[in-house]
């Protein structure tokens, strides 16, 4: 993230290890970031990239409710995108 505009809101819940990034103006959920012991990781909500949506496979519903915090961090370290936080 190059800069954090004032319209960006962060929402945490449950395990409180993730910042869900929300636009204060329209409520759109833009993506999420997480800090692990090693570095920061992030994901983008692909709904924010409308021109790409038609090229993507049909999404599958996932269930991560039974993960421990360590499981969750480990999965995200493998699958999420490393990011640099300014």
């Amino acid at each position, binding site marked *: 993230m190059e800069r954090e505009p004032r319209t960006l*809101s962060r*929402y945490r*819940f449950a395990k409180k290890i993730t910042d*869900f990034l*929300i*636009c*204060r*103006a*329209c*409520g*759109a*959920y833009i993506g999420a970031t997480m800090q692990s012991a090693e570095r920061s990781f992030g994901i983008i*909500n692909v*709904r*924010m990239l*409308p021109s790409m*949506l038609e090229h993507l496979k049909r999404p599958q*519903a996932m269930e991560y409710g039974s993960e421990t915090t360590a499981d969750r961090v480990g999965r995200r370290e493998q699958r999420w995108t490393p990011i640099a936080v300014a």
Partner: protein
Amino acid sequence: MTTPTKRSYRRVGPTEIRATHRASCHCGAVVLELDLPNGIEDPRRCNCSICRRKGAVVAAVPLSGLRVVKGADVLRLYQFNTKTARHYFCGNCGVYTHHQRRVNPNEYGFNVGCLEGVDPFDIPDVPTSDGVNHPADRHPARPSA
């Protein structure tokens, strides 16, 4: 795009839809009370510029059929384009709860996923409205040169 078919749901998965059913945002700051005497009527998605970003399954009630029972001060309003529709979301967790509809300002659309005990993934084959081609956004053809 799916051909519109009117359907109503008095039960979704294990949850019976009550005549007066509560709904809430994710953090619980906003709570709504909805009159749903016929269940969830005509639930659908929409491909307009805001709905495609929200991804919510939406159904509608008359304006008198929705009451904000908690968190009116937390709700934020978003308007764009013709500024006819009034889109409300929780200022804390960002979840879209309801909107006053542009196609019928006498109705609120509401987020089916906010209903207590309702998983919208339990509603089969939800049709998608062609909101991106809304009649109010069509402009008269320009005269050709």
